[in-house]
């Protein structure tokens, strides 16, 4: 398995594309993720048709209207006589594109009826929209937590490698301690001592900070290794000889050399932290309803009835796979690339 720069580029493009899809969730998804429809709990996914029951071909794709079966509340049947043609770029629920630009146009939808491509959950909320919006929450949590982790890691690791001495010993003992504690248990433990019932935004920030702050030790150790060898290189020594200050040396000469290590860590940490958020939310310790996240979308599967009767509630788990594929392949292709700075651990 040779990994070429060409392949790395292809992976990057793939990652950017799927992130753009999630970023533009408001536009791509036809409905608001928290809009309920009490008449349609657990509606199954719809199939897009071109040919109707009479065998007639239609250029405009359509779905059939789902009617609740007699004497049932969650069993649906396609009404083959009523077509719901899909419209492209219709007006719908208002949203903010990228969180700022107010808009009402969606990629697709219909004025003639409800289109739940991937079905609905127990409150009749559109699963397709919830998966996209949930991706925003989970991925942002992963990204921000990675940022927090790397910020602390680079700060401590850089200082520890550059200054050495007692700063180094204290920082590295602390890092060892953090690595010795079981990560997921620690995450749970820390989460246990924070308030359980908080607003979604507060819960989101709490999770980001907790996940990020607990994961600093690995990047710190790596950055320390690079800084340790970087400060002994000739041009850094020369700059120090000319009287450059510590902050200048760190900023201009030492930290830039850690760039490749940090990039690799980004690709490794993001999926790990997204998974941490998903796990926490799945277990009810993370982002609370009604805000969607991949984790709390899956949490309904803890009920046996959902697991046995509504298979489409499993779809959010599959939505994660392309992202993990992208990040993991990217990290392995970055690790294969010859590093500019020699890393010693």
């Amino acid at each position, binding site marked *: 398995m040779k990994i070429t720069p060409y392949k790395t580029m292809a992976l990057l493009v793939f990652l950017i594309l799927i992130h753009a899809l999630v970023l533009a969730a408001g536009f791509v998804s036809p409905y608001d993720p928290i809009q309920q429809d009490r008449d349609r709990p657990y509606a199954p996914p719809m199939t897009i048709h071109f040919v109707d029951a009479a065998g007639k071909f239609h250029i405009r794709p359509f779905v059939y209207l789902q009617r609740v079966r007699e004497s049932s509340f969650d069993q649906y049947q396609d009404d083959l006589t009523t077509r719901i043609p899909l419209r492209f770029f219709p007006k719908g629920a208002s949203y903010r594109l990228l969180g700022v630009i107010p808009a009402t146009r969606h990629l697709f939808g219909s004025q003639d009826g409800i289109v739940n491509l991937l079905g609905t959950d127990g409150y009749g909320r559109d699963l397709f929209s919830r998966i996209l919006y949930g991706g925003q929450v989970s991925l942002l949590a992963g990204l921000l937590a990675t940022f927090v982790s790397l910020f602390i890691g680079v700060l401590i690791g850089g200082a520890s490698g550059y200054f050495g001495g007692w700063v180094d010993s204290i920082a590295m003992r602390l890092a060892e*301690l953090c690595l010795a504690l079981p990560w997921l*248990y*620690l995450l749970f*433990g820390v989460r246990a001592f924070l308030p359980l019932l908080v607003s979604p935004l507060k819960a989101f920030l709490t999770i980001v900070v907790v996940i990020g702050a607990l994961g600093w030790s690995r990047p710190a150790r790596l950055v320390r290794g690079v800084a340790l060898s970087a400060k002994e290189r000739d041009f850094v020594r020369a700059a120090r000889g000319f009287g450059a200050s510590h902050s200048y040396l760190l900023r201009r000469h030492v930290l830039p050399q850690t760039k490749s290590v940090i990039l690799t860590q980004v690709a490794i940490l993001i999926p790990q932290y997204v998974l941490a958020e998903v796990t926490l939310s799945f277990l009810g310790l993370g982002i609370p309803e009604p805000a969607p996240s991949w984790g709390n979308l899956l949490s309904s599967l803890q009920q046996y009835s959902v*697991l046995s009767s509504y298979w489409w509630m499993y779809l959010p788990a599959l939505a994660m796979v392309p992202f*993990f594929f992208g990040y993991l392949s990217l990290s392995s292709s970055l690790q294969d690339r010859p590093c500019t700075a020699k890393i010693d651990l």
Partner: protein
Amino acid sequence: MRYLARRFLHALLLFAAATVVTFLFTALAPGNYFDEMRLNPQISPQTLTALKAHYDLDKPLVVRYLVWLESLVRGEMGYSFAYNSPVAPLLLLRARNTLLLTITSTLLAWCIALPLGVWSAEYSTQWGDRLVTGVSAILLVIPDIALALGLLMIAVHTRWFPVGGMVSVGSEALSFAARSWDLARHMFLPATLLVLTAQPILVRHIRSSVAEALEQSFVRAAEAHGIPRRRLLWRYALPAAANPLISLFGFSLGALLSGSLLIEVVTSWPGLGPFLLEAILARDLYVVIGGVLLSTLFLVTGNFIADVLLFWADPRIQTE
């Protein structure tokens, strides 16, 4: 020997520091187990104060820590509010279930991964190796939680094996053989999940270290002397590749208690994971601390065992 003594001291200090850190985290906690009782009009404020005093919650942190240390020495690890009993017996009961599951699955995982890894390093560039690396890549990309829920769903739909719990209702009345069979059937799902999630990482590490060892000149020299391939692989390359694998094995040992949390919860295996989760939601302070520290103890011990094994396996460390 001095090396081992130093590693042991190191592990001991690490564990001691972990107890302090975990206790410090609890000091950050807003509220405690009895806060929700305040809303209950049937419980008077006096009772609450008395309860808090009884459990030492009104004392400063240092005192609480010392009291807890004392109870650790007595083998109690503090007192559970919700169960109204010492923590250690509660934890040990759950830890036993967890270990039953994880020791089985770790053994299985290594027994499968070792031949697979060595074999795929030997035949790298052939279709067998491509198959192994391909399957591990796919397993690596599917998040644990997706794999767990997916298999659970298959189990529920096909009814091939039981979902949830450790024993069937009324299994106490069965014979020993039937009870073991019942247990094995219940363990099948969580154990499969643990083996599958561990597999790609183990295979990758084993494959890359064996492949690296095979490239070395002494292996080639041995090959030139006409030593059979099988002997070359298992007697020459594998010991040379052993060091990172021993560290990895130590890590596997260390993760025995903490590695299966999610899968235990998903498949409702009555182990430490669901117990800890319940304690977190109930704010049962000492159970949480006990759970975290018990699994820390395992991690630290696992690393120490890896150090001992390395010392035993690698003469270079002994002479250092």
